[in-house]
């Protein structure tokens, strides 16, 4: 079968399904190609973001619909629209004088007939009159790869059933981001990504699970029921750490480890990162360093135990810090004493525990429980633990570089509410900023899950390798997500047309071209099964779930 015949067949398939095809009539590589729809095509079947295949002379091109336009070959059509809008004339004019045009952004190309290599980014455009049709399943596979180890099925291109896969290897090489306003399915998407990373074994996850959604179970707002967390799906590969044992227990869950933080473990940097959320002045934040120099490791406890105006005055003069600043710092930090995970005595082993699990390739989900509602606690703990873990990874890696031992398993740290501590002011000072900028120098990357990307430091944003963006409606957020990406204007229109659920625009290093996807289902028995979950107890369970489901939905 030559390519023409193949294309004809493809077109027929597509026509049956979507009802459109077209030919290239103009355009450019930078501005996109203009495609005139065939007169039989139904313009309503064309959707922005749709992946299309263009059959050039020697190359097959892949692109994306970026705009749908109503065109007319007659400039005066609007003047006498009335007389031709009725009867047979309307049918004649449709598809001839009044026709549909779409804009297609060419992204990739591959030599016709080449099935072994993967498509490269398009450096030219197909010639005039090349045929354009919706990409077939085989094209999607050619572009994004088949589902295989290391290729994780993340969803389907919009309006298609094909499985669109993410190259996990590429994905974990850099820090990444999942964005979208709340309620758009960030968590579901993240959970899938985590499962994908976990399944691939290319990296281990450390999840700072603010709202306790990833570990044991989450809640689906659309389906209105509980969904399984990672631990339920991959019990042997996931460990749940908890900061709030009570909370875990209430949920009938025994955490693998209860994290405690010793006052001594808190360093001035940890206070600095909270500067914003604690509304500390720069002087007050600096005071922490002075206190550290003055008291040493146990500075925080010592400081918090200081009381009385006189002691404050003397302390202030001793460490040469403005007294007001000092007392402010004291007031703010005294909130720490409410944290039950803070421990005055012991020197805790949390970091080592986490590392032990990670070393064994077991993913760690740290559930914050009630502290999830306290951003300060989240930032404090996440920052503190990450800094330590990062230091250990750095050592480990440097040892490996000098020939001692293996490289550490790549680590992906998932953090939420990043806009609160990866702000332009703080990004430089936090460990997350460092990690994001360093790429995978020490085999540690972060996965940012956030709803306000515009408030995250521009440099951090620009370092993110792959971004998965659900619906965003704030222009600034959209700008920040798309900054530095080619074809911004077109992606913007794609982004703004996303559904508010289960749809995302994915672009960056892990895939050859930006693509708008319907995120893979998560939460149904089938979806669990497709993720490799086999019910360990018995088969009744599965039928029970189905039963429950039918009870629930009738």
């Amino acid at each position, binding site marked *: 079968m030559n390519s023409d015949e193949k294309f004809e067949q493809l077109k027929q398939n597509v026509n049956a399904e979507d009802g459109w095809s077209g030919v290239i009539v103009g355009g450019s590589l930078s501005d996109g190609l203009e495609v005139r729809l065939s*007169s039989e095509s139904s313009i309503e079947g064309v959707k922005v973001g749709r992946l299309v295949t263009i059959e050039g002379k020697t190359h097959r091109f892949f692109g994306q619909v970026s705009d749908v336009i109503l065109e007319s*070959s*007659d*400039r*005066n*059509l609007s003047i*006498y629209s009335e*007389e*031709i809008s009725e*009867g*047979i*004339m309307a*049918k*004649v*004019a449709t*598809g*001839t*004088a009044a026709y549909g045009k779409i804009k297609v952004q060419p992204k990739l190309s591959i030599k016709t007939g080449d099935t072994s290599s993967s498509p490269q980014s398009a450096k030219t455009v197909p010639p005039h009159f090349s045929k354009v049709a919706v990409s077939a399943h085989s094209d999607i596979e050619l572009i994004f790869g088949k589902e295989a180890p290391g290729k994780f099925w993340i969803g389907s291109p919009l309006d298609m059933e094909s499985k669109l896969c993410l190259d996990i290897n590429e994905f974990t090489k850099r820090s990444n981001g999942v964005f979208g306003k709340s309620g758009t399915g960030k968590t579901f998407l993240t959970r899938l990504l985590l499962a994908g990373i976990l399944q691939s074994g290319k990296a281990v996850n450390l999840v700072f699970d603010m709202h306790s959604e990833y570990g044991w179970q989450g809640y689906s707002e659309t389906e209105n029921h509980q969904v399984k967390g990672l631990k339920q799906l991959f019990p042997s590969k996931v460990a749940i750490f908890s900061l709030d044992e009570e909370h875990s227990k209430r949920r009938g869950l025994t955490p693998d480890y209860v994290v405690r933080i010793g006052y001594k473990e808190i360093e001035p940097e940890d206070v600095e990162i909270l500067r914003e959320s604690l509304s500390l002045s720069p002087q007050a934040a600096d005071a922490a360093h002075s206190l550290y120099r003055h008291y040493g490791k146990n500075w925080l406890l010592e400081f918090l135990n200081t009381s009385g105006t006189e002691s404050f005055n003397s302390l202030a003069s001793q460490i040469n810090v403005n007294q007001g600043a000092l007392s402010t710092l004291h007031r703010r930090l005294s909130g720490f004493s409410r944290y039950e995970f803070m421990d005055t005595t012991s020197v805790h082993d949390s970091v080592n525990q986490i590392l032990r699990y990670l070393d064994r390739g077991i993913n760690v989900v740290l559930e914050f429980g009630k502290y999830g509602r306290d951003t300060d606690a989240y930032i404090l703990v996440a920052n503190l633990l990450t800094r330590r873990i990062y230091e250990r990874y750095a050592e480990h890696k440097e040892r490996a570089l000098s020939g001692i031992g293996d490289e550490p398993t790549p680590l992906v740290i998932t953090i939420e509410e990043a806009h609160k501590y990866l702000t332009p002011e703080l990004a430089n000072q936090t460990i997350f900023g460092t990690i994001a900028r360093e790429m995978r120098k020490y085999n540690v990357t972060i996965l940012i899950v956030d709803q306000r990307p515009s408030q995250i430091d521009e440099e951090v944003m620009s370092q993110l390798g792959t971004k998965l963006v659900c619906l965003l409606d704030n222009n600034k957020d959209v700008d920040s997500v798309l900054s530095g990406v080619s074809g911004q204007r077109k992606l913007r229109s794609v982004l703004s047309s996303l559904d508010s659920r289960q749809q995302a625009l994915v672009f960056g290093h892990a895939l050859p071209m930006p693509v708008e996807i319907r995120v893979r289902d998560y939460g149904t028995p089938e979806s669990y099964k497709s993720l490799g979950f086999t019910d360990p107890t018995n088969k009744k369970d599965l039928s029970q779930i189905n039963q429950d489901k039918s009870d629930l939905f009738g």
Partner: protein
Amino acid sequence: MNSKKQNRKEKLSKEIIGEVIRASSTEFETQCYDLYGFPPLGSLVLSDDENPIFGIVSHSVTESLDPSRTPRPRGPGLADVKSIYQESPQLKNLLNSRFTSITVGYIQSQTVVRKLSPVPPKILSITRISTESELIEFSSNFDFVARLLNSSFASSDDVLASFLSIAARLRPEPDQYLIDTGKEIASLLPGQMRRVNLILRNASI
């Protein structure tokens, strides 16, 4: 329709109406045997010698055989035209009806070719109106549309409309035929939807 009736109709429509008196690559003129014996505008005719050539009647004229002698009005006295011809029978000898057909195709080894004929019809070849089946076959492909639109005739649009009207009537779904042809016309006349509209409106009456 029973076959007898069909036969009769075929025979009738195969009527020979005149002979070619002028022929060029793009058109040929037929002089009718009978005064006013020309077919309606837009009819498909054939100059039927050994190389039958299709033409679409695009221009009909009745005038004095001798260009220096013009008809003289008879005044308002006579009741109707018919009685004028009755009273002046010589008019039939002095006037002649001719029609010009735009060449739109020919028959080669029993297939219809919708192009200009390599050679024009011979002078004095007989001209006949096409049969229904010939008309249906000829009009089933829209290549003729461009020929008509590109012809130098000032009123070729009306000729096209008349032809379509005749051809559409022979089809079970005349409107669909006009829509299909209309799309062809529209693609040949980009930016001229009003003209396309006029053609189709004339054709659908």
